[in-house]
């Protein structure tokens, strides 16, 4: 883990309110897995950093991308950065999706909802490098909120859902029914994760959780969640953000 001023080398509006930034810096060397995240400072008025997942990374060029939706003041601030600007970043943080234990012949289903989609692109890309073809279900509110579609389609069969039916199947990601996969990798709003956990209880299911964070490194106890063993005994920032679905209690 490092703290570094990373340089914005590219900025792209993916939708009306979703920005992709490509950042350059030495901490990319330390990235181990898709699903790890950065903790990003957003100006002097904000005492807390913002956790944003690493969507993809390129160790050769010391570059990575983050994709975020403009939600409140911090992401608004980030969205005003331009090429060449420096941004104060800590990372990589968290465990990420461990795909190394997945056998090469396994059936892998990737399920992403909304702004949970970006880290899964890293997952699918890493599988691709290992010649494992993933299937994807991506859910969005509506057509104009959808992004990364082409990118996922290139990596494997991709099913789309939108709440309003403006693109793909109308409904939620769990309304798409496919043969039970061996592994599920998922990230998205907690209501979606709960539904995914239930629907894919017979698969090995990895979920990336979200929680309000303070430090991002395990010292503040802001981001706790409960395992099956004890209440509040896991920290999303260091024990997660990725957990096996049947290990954690989803609230």
């Amino acid at each position, binding site marked *: 883990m490092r703290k570094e001023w990373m340089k914005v080398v590219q900025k792209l509006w993916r939708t009306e309110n979703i920005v992709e930034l490509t950042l350059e810096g030495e901490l990319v060397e330390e990235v181990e897995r898709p699903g790890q995240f950065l903790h990003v400072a957003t100006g002097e008025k904000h005492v*807390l950093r913002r956790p944003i997942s690493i969507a993809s990374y390129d160790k050769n060029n010391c570059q990575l991308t983050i994709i975020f939706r403009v939600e*409140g003041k911090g992401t608004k601030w980030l969205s005003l950065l331009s090429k060449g600007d420096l941004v104060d970043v800590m990372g990589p943080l968290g465990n990420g999706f461990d795909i190394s234990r997945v056998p090469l012949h396994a059936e892998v289903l990737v399920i992403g909802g909304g702004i949970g989609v970006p880290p899964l692109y890293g997952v699918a890309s890493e599988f691709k490098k290992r010649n494992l073809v993933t299937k994807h279900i991506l859910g969005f509110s509506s057509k104009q909120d959808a992004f990364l579609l082409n990118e996922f389609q290139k990596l494997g069969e991709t099913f789309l859902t939108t709440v309003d039916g403006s693109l793909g199947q109308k409904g939620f990601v769990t309304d798409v029914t496919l043969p039970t996969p061996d592994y599920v990798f998922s990230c998205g709003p907690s209501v979606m994760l709960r539904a995914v956990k239930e629907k894919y209880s017979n698969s090995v299911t990895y979920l990336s959780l979200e929680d*309000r964070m*303070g*430090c991002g490194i395990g010292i*503040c*106890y802001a981001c706790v969640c409960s395992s099956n063993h004890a209440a*509040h005994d896991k920290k999303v920032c260091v024990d997660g953000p990725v957990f096996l679905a049947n290990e954690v209690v989803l609230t």
Partner: protein
Amino acid sequence: MINLAVQLPGLSLKNPIMPASGCFSFGREIGELYDLSKLGAVITKATTQHPRIGNATPRVAESSSGMLNAIGLQNPGVEQVVSEELKRLASYDVPVIVNVAGSSLEEYVEVASVVSKISNVHAIELNISCPNVKDGGIIFGTDALVAAELTKAVVAASSVPVYVKLSPNVTSIVPIAKAIEEAGASGLTMINTLLGMELDRKTGKPILANRTGGLSGPAIKPIAIRLIDEVRRNTSIPIIAMGGVETVQDVIDYLSIGANAVAVGTAHFKNPWICSELIDQLPEALASLGYSSVEQCIGRSHDHEYLLSR
């Protein structure tokens, strides 16, 4: 050579900088970032008799130049704190101050008596001001008589000097500080957080599951400076100051108003190396004011007026 050392009851500090309770856990994570022996001292997370699971999440929210927290004293209980956390900290050359919390006088006394016997524990910080749990001590911190009674009991039970952490959520802090001084406390730490609330934009409801939380960060610094000024001019025991420290200028400000040492809380979340960096910057900051030691800077706001008035 600038002399950074500060001598306080029970504490021989290499320098006046230390992490504040709850913003450093028990040092395991930050110990991986730099050598904790560099610190003046460490103040641990609140420790209670039994393990506590704390409040529901969300536990933090942000505000302008500040944040709210309602962790709710989550900690593994005194037994595990002693067997694991304090043991690990013993491998560093740094005095430990254990932040002790409880919901009854008996619990405070029990925890203080246990931890104060551990050899690397050089002082206790009595947390009578946690605003985030119903039974978390703030009741002890807002009434002078109750605070004094508790202080007396803990001082009697503790093998090391007791510092009492004051709550800023009071109409008059001086009577409380004086009562605690008279009850035998060796020092004061101040301030704990101010009670606040933030609302979710979409729902209009409180963000924190606990509804309210403690406000910390630069936003509260002017309030902390004012409270320390009041207490400094009306008591004689040392003060460890905290509240919004981010820069070495903030450290100088707290020393100037009369604090003997300075703790850093919230700033750890943006920069976990903050204490180490402040320690590096302090000699130059003191030198630029013409001082050759921390001691010379302490209380400069008062022109020694407060010393004379006592």
